[in-house]
């Protein structure tokens, strides 16, 4: 984990500004701001359906045909990905920006060898010859800790386990040393025993290759162990953002508090497999018929004006909370800094 204050001082590598994404008749991401510094790990957290995967897909411009970016900037290395031409976008994808997905079982092409699928991205972006790309692919398989890469390289995906397939996906993603990697629930589909290995691998590669990592997860244990900063999403909104230490030490938004309360023993044994989000009463259906806070129907601390005024994110020190009542009752920034020191 790098020092969060140092990370905050660096210019952002990647920033979403007011991102709005919708599917027909259904807004999914609403006015999201997010910034990622070089080499930083930012976790996007929330229940399924809160728009965290859609955010990453939109940032890569990989939304399904029916999805639309309605507004917002996607700033990356000084350019706005939201308005980039398809050709410029292709030049960035796989080279400067990469993504790995939730389902390793279906994310690899079943009729091509894994070597071919890794080499493909090298030939595309680094203009290597087939032979050179193959040699690099073997190195990459070794890098992601696949045993006997010389033999494995000619295997088709169906011969590999889920964990190995996800390692191959990681090899493809990091092949061209991207500056930013989106990992969309990279271990959700894997065995518990494999999850830690894959996440450790990702974290090591992030450090070694100097990439920034946007880790999308609903697993608070994963967040606590790997993330520098956390962005909590609810129904397409960012409800809270803080450094990992601050968030776990003193969650401010009632939703975040609910998430942490639902994940037992986080403060005692930080094991990611146990930190699942458990039940908060109700469901994040997003279909709120009042202009106010989307979480209001499920919020244990809801007040009358919550349903009337949309909650604007307010800064307390270097963290943000989209819940005026929570901010009002929050201790001073100094006190928070103290809390952070105690944990970190």
């Amino acid at each position, binding site marked *: 984990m790098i020092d969060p204050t140092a990370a905050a001082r660096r210019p952002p590598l990647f920033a979403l500004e007011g991102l709005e994404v919708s599917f027909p008749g259904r807004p999914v991401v609403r006015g999201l701001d997010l910034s990622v510094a070089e080499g930083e790990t930012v976790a996007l957290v929330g229940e399924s359906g809160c728009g965290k995967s859609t955010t990453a897909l939109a940032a890569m411009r990989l939304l399904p045909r029916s999805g639309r970016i309605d507004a917002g900037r996607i700033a990356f290395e000084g350019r706005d990905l939201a308005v980039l031409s398809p050709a410029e976008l292709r030049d*960035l*994808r*796989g*080279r400067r920006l990469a993504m790995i997905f939730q389902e390793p079982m*279906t994310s690899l*092409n*079943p009729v091509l060898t894994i070597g071919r699928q890794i080499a493909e991205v090298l030939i595309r*972006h680094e203009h290597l010859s087939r032979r050179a790309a193959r040699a690099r692919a073997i190195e990459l398989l070794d890098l992601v800790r696949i045993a006997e890469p010389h033999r494995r390289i*000619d295997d088709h995906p169906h011969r590999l386990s889920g964990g190995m397939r996800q390692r191959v996906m990681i090899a493809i993603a990091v092949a061209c040393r991207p500056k930013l990697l989106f990992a969309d629930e990279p271990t959700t589909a894997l065995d518990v025993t494999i999850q830690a290995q894959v996440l450790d691998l990702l974290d090591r590669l992030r450090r070694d290759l100097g990439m920034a990592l946007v880790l999308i997860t609903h697993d608070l244990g994963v967040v606590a162990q790997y993330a520098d900063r956390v962005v909590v999403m609810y129904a397409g909104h960012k409800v809270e953002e803080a450094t990992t230490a601050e968030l776990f030490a003193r969650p401010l938004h009632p939703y975040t508090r609910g998430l942490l309360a639902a994940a037992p023993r986080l403060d005692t044994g930080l094991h990611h497999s146990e930190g699942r989000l458990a039940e908060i009463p109700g469901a994040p259906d997003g279909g709120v018929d009042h202009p106010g806070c989307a979480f209001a129907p499920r919020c244990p601390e809801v007040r009358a004006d919550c349903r009337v005024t949309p909650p604007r994110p307010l800064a307390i020190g270097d963290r943000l909370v989209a819940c005026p009542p929570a901010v009002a009752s929050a201790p001073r920034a100094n006190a928070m800094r103290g809390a952070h020191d105690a944990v970190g």
Partner: protein
Amino acid sequence: MLGTLNRLLWTLVRGVLRAVPTLVGVVVVSFLLMQAAPGDAADVMAGESGTSTVETMAILRARFGLDQPVLTQFVGFVANLAHFSLGRSPRWDVPVADLILARLPDTLLLMGSALGFAVVLGIGLGAVMASFVNRWPDRILSVVTLLFYSVPGFWTGLMAILIFSVGLGLLPSGGSQTIAAGLTGWDRVWDVAAHLVLPAAALSTFFVAVYARLTRAAMLEVQGQDYVRTATAKGLHPIVVATRHVLRNALVPVTTVAGLHVGSLLGGAMVIETVFSWPGLGRLAFEAVMKRDFSVLLGILVVSSVVVVVVDVLVDLLHAALDPRIEGHGHG
């Protein structure tokens, strides 16, 4: 690489083993049909010549073994087949196998050309339709393919003759080459090709529609797969994604169905050959029906079934080459 060869070898062995009972079945069915045929060749010949004495009939029957008990005839039939002989045609008075083998290459040429044309054009149209799904190229091509699907091939052939031979005088309207032109080398190839265009195109229309619709459906199915998103995330060009990733996977179901249609392609060839006076098996079958020569007709049935079986095995091989998940012993 050795693994691939091994897999293909297994697929070949499995295909051949599966083909054996089918071929036995074809032989039994053919023989039963032969027995069911009303009257035999001797009746027809005697009736035509008008000099039908009981003696000449008996001689004719004895000559073709028609006086033997059914089981003996069946044993003879199978024994003949075992020697790649299909018996002797009463009407042409030559071995049936010779008749058929003389015509087979022309039919295979016509069929192969039509199949190749249908596969290339059909997959191409299907890929275009899938890429423009629900937009105007897709809508227009959907109507066109449905039309292709509904037009009898022989009528397409006749209309093509009307337009391209009678009207425009561009292409020959019948035969497989210019008779007595004595062409050699490339001139001959060119001549045969010119004769081939219209019948092959007419034969292929229906199958173009079949493969186009199938390719469209298969590509739409594949387009939604996660690995296509992975390919896009690599920064590949949409055309590379569509061909290397989508089409390659979509071809697996398309080849299976292409194999299933070889039989109907042979049947279609029979009608098309009649339209274009193409000297193939189909015309021979037509002539055999007219002359009521069931030995030739059933010989054609057996040989065309063998062609289908051989193509099936080839399609299995192609299928295994396209889809590495097929392990050869049982579908993986």
